[in-house]
């Protein structure tokens, strides 16, 4: 009974999470080997008469991101704001906005109330890599300022938990087949030696 239930759950949880595993797996090749010129913009537009929230240049952190978010519809931009930066000397307010398929930088002139919006369309693989890295470890207090990033976090976490379940249930299902135990143990041992050997070499 336990075996049967474990096999069924292993199968159906595995099928559900498989597209996410493929996305995370394929994007690794992009993250490890691709090179992208991030300063080659697809388009650069100037938006005038931007309604700038009062005191924007004085705000920091999440508050600055929230105010910057209010301006996005005027700029026809949507996505996750990476950070905000005030260039005091020129009174410019700069922030990047990202989403799969598009990287945007907004350079807002606070005095002229005009914004230069530079867009770079990305490839599908770069979009996968973006999802792979989201929400990520940087600017923790700011991350998740776009509703889709918050949603994606749930699915990224679910992928991890389901993967943990799949590995543990997989061990149980493999161990139940006596004829496969010896070779399976040898493969697990070979994997462990490779894993800990590499970790040891890199650390020491």
């Amino acid at each position, binding site marked *: 009974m336990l075996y049967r239930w474990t096999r069924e759950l292993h*199968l159906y949880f595995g099928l*559900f999470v498989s597209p996410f595993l493929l996305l*995370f*797996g394929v994007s690794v090749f992009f993250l490890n080997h691709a090179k992208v010129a991030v300063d080659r913009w697809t388009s650069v537009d100037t938006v005038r008469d931007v309604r700038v929230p009062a005191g924007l240049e004085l705000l920091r952190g999440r508050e600055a991101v929230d105010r910057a978010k209010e301006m996005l519809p005027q700029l026809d931009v949507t996505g996750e704001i990476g950070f905000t930066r005030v260039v005091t000397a020129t009174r410019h307010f700069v922030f990047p906005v990202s989403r799969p398929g598009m990287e945007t930088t907004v350079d807002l002139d606070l005095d002229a109330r005009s914004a230069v919006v530079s867009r770079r369309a990305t490839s599908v693989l770069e979009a996968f890599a973006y999802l792979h890295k989201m929400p990520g470890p940087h600017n923790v207090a700011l991350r998740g300022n776009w509703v889709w990033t918050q949603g*994606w976090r749930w699915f990224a976490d679910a992928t991890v938990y389901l993967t943990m379940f799949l590995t543990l249930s997989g061990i149980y299902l493999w161990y*139940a087949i006596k004829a496969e135990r010896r070779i399976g143990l040898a493969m697990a041992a070979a*994997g462990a030696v490779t894993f800990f050997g590499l970790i040891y070499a890199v650390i020491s």
Partner: protein
Amino acid sequence: MPSSANASTGAKRRPNLETWNRKIHYYLGLFFLFFLWLFSLTGLLLNHGQWRLAAAANARTETRFERGIEPPAGEDDLARARDVMRQLGLTGEIELPAAAQAQGRFDFSVNRPKDASQVKVDLSTKRASVQHFQNSGWAVFRIFHTFSGSRFNAPGSHRDWILTSAWTLAMDALSAGLVVIVLGSYYMWFRFKRKNLALGIAVLAAGYACCALFLQFMWP
């Protein structure tokens, strides 16, 4: 639970695609078990910087020292950085600044999962000042998730340490293995559940629909 008799009878039969596919599924899964656990757990740590454990991983110990060195020798910046590292006894992945070096200076950083060093060489006084950061155990654990020595959005960054290349190869192998495991599982499901595919199709479609939903709404 399958009996050993069935399994051994199966083993005597000439292995076909189905048998090999099943064996590959087991064996790859078992070989990559520890790699999967590491990338899964570090993935959680990376996505939850607010967790106490993740915050603890940010703690690192800083030390500084200065030492006289011979002028760095070499045909390019990478060779010169290697020469300085040899003199200072440093090892790891070299990261050269994206901008050109300032006149009379030679700066770079050296990274490994366990530590990082920022090296600043004053060529006129022949002195190197080193800012060394020792990472905590959890930080070391977490860094392995991203330790590839290359960033796709920094065209100037390249792997130059053999152990980074070895670790990257392991990452690639895991990813390729994962793709093989997933595609093999589709075949296994189709063979085993041929008479009752509806539930599997529904679950698989739900998984792809969730992925497509994100891409559909997030894509410009």
